[in-house]
């Protein structure tokens, strides 16, 4: 990284020391985000990072942009409100796999199909970090955890396949430990208008230390992968779940763009004129 970029990236670093455990993948995602923001030349004053609750959701505090650290699972609708209120802002949603696909899972398909122009970086550690290690919707079947002492009875959710099914306009997978790629994916995700989803492997060293395994398993998506083919992207998401890269990409009109167009097409209104429509009688002389 050029020195200049390093300085710019550093400018996104807030004074707050991350409370994460040593080795936590979230550090890597944070660093990649700093660099991506720098590369894109984001204006911290016009950038908002929205999160839910979880270790990973502490993220906004460590960045010098605006932040919204809301409640568990509601980052996406909150981010939509921010973006629609001011479409000039760059809005990034972040959080964990529990936040995103357990309690918050009901919002994901709607953010995707609305195609609101935000980028969602999900730090996936296949575990609930903050609450000390229970399984999440992405945890492996049979996995033992404090809440599954006899092994997890549930099949993990394939979040990439889910995103493709929701016709998410940009679906990618990165990893905290593959910094350059992750930086690029975040850059691409933010650049693309519409809803971009980046599933970022981000190991939890405290409760599900998959660092080694994931480093070994992760690999770049084959160059011949056709990201414009939705059915193909789905097949790849099933067949090659450890691949890093852009699985699917289909730019299309954004919600904020459509809303702007609607506003522009509309005649400016006034309350007085609307009241006229309800008038039942004018003043009459006594």
């Amino acid at each position: 990284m050029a020195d200049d970029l390093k300085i710019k990236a550093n400018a996104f670093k807030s004074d707050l020391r991350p409370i994460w455990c040593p080795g936590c993948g979230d550090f890597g995602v944070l660093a990649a985000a700093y660099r991506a923001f720098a590369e894109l030349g984001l204006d911290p004053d016009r950038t908002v990072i929205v999160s839910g609750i979880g270790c990973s959701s502490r993220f906004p505090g460590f960045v010098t942009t605006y932040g919204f650290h809301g409640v568990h699972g509601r980052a996406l609708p909150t981010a939509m409100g921010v973006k629609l209120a001011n479409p000039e802002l760059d809005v990034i949603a972040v959080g964990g796999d529990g936040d995103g696909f357990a309690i918050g899972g009901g919002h994901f398909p709607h953010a995707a199909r609305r195609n609101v122009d935000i980028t969602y970086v999900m730090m996936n550690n296949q575990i609930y970090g903050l609450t000390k290690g229970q399984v999440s919707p992405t945890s492996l079947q049979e996995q033992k955890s404090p809440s599954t002492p006899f092994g997890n009875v549930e099949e993990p959710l394939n979040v990439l396949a889910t995103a493709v099914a929701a016709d998410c306009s940009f679906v990618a997978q990165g990893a905290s430990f593959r910094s350059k790629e992750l930086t690029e994916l975040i850059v691409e995700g933010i650049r693309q208008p519409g809803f971009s989803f980046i599933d970022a492997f981000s190991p939890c060293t405290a409760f599900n230390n998959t660092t080694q395994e994931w480093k070994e398993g992760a690999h770049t998506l084959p160059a011949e992968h056709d990201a414009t083919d939705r059915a193909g992207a789905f097949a790849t998401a099933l067949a090659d779940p450890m691949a890093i890269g852009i699985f699917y990409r289909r730019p299309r009109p954004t919600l904020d763009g459509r809303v702007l167009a609607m506003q522009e097409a509309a005649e400016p209104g006034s309350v007085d004129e609307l009241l006229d429509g309800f008038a039942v009688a004018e003043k009459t002389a006594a």
Partner: protein
Amino acid sequence: MIRDDITVRLAGESGEGVISGGDILTTGAARTGYWALTFRTYPAEIKGGPCMYQVRVGVNEVHSQGNAVDLLLCFNQEAFDLHHHELAPDGHIVCDAESVKVTPAFESRCSEVPLGALAQEAGGSRRGKNMVAVGLVCGLLGIDTHKIEQMILKRYAHKGDVGEANIRSLLAGAGHARSQLPEGVHRLGPATAQEEERVLLSGNQAICLGALHAGLTYYAGYPITPASDILEWLAGRLPRFGGAAIQTEDEIAALASVLGASFAGKKAMTATSGPGLSLMAELVGLAGMAEIPAVIVDAQRSGPSTGMPTKTEQSDLNHALYGGHGEAPRVVMAPTSVADCFTVIVESFNAAERYQVPVIMLSDQSLSHRLETVHRPDPAEHEVVERLRPHGTVNGDYNRYEISADGISAMAVPGGGGAYVSTGIEHDEAGNPHYEPELHEAMMAKRFGKLDPLMRESRISFSGPDRADVGILGWGSTEGAAIEAAAICLDQGVKVSTCYPRVLGPLPVDRIGRWARGMDRIIVPELNVTGQFARVVRADTGLTVDSITKATGLPFTARQIADYVTDEVRPQDDSGVWEAGVTGEARVG
């Protein structure tokens, strides 16, 4: 007899034109210079089923739906069976000669008219029945049909001669009434001259208009009866104000996005009914903790759970005041009439923005959906407040949650400098997470203390003398009936005053306490079972009050409240001493 106001009820099967007939009658009467106030019930069926439309038409302003039905129009037998017992002793029934068999006891007060035949004859189609009915009402009451004819012409302008046919049916009805029906039926006095412009609005429409005036530009909501029409109305208008109305996947997403939009600097609102408000509990707490302005309209319906979704009730007060874990500040307001809906929604936005809190405004089904002629609101008379923003450009040292003297901290907005993290975690002045005991106590004190001025300054409407036999202390949509009840009581020699605070949380206890000193006894009427407001009053003011509750899904009539006062509360001797006690619950059928 010539009367100042008359209550008319049309009843039939959905699809027979009862609702459109009622709407035309109401609008026509209003355009003719009368005051009108409507009341409807809805069938349980999705389509079809019995329905009714009641309109009280007055020479002067009317404040409630009326006590008993003066003129009842029955389109079919079921309508007669369901409604005839609500007829006033001196009321009259007109029913369809072809389908209704009247019980002997009512024969003398009933006229039979072949609605379908008249419509067929005059307009060429039996479907014009409802126009015949409207004409009959106009003829009986003496309402000039001129304005109604104009309306019909306009409504069917593009439908060939449907308009003309309908007018013929209308006039046939009116003529029939004049020529064939008994003379003894009450007539309305002539409409008086209008000194001001008037509009005919529903409560929900008044809420929408007021919200637009207050500066609403972001609305998000999930459909639910009786709040859906707020979403629908705004969806068509907000783009014209540079705003947007979004239908979200649920109520949680609606409020989450409202908070996001408000954080980003917009005035934002959602509207729902009970089940949606329940789901919003966690996010109301976030708004309180993170100090984000937001307005939440709750058009209450009859609960609990899914309950009776098309019926009215005032039973979400507890949840509005106390719902949600932990202790997060909020403001709870309640409008008392359609006109007041406009005023209170503006006040709700003002409080939300001034105090940076969520404001829950409690309407109810009967208020949200009734039509009422009101003085045309003059937006210029309703001041609009903007939130405190940091002065000039902010750099470095901005403290979003500064513990200022009045507890209100300047709120930066993205794009305006002063980047910070808005958070539901306990935080220091800068917004960073902190759990120190002293800090938590200081922040809790800040968040609640900032509402103190509201407690002193919020609006209360009083009616009646400063010293009275009975004080009615109420909230929300019962005010009209309470004021009319006071008039009934005065006729019977009982002095009654009313007190309706618009802000129920924080309650203006001192001013209520002062008013209460002049009252020999206080009653709290409300449309629920447990007497929610009465409990709040007892807990917050220490006053001893009688709780009068009604939970039938229907609004109070003035007469019901008056009867309670004169039967139960009226002093039996001159000692002026009332039995003290915190109980004294009564149920009004």
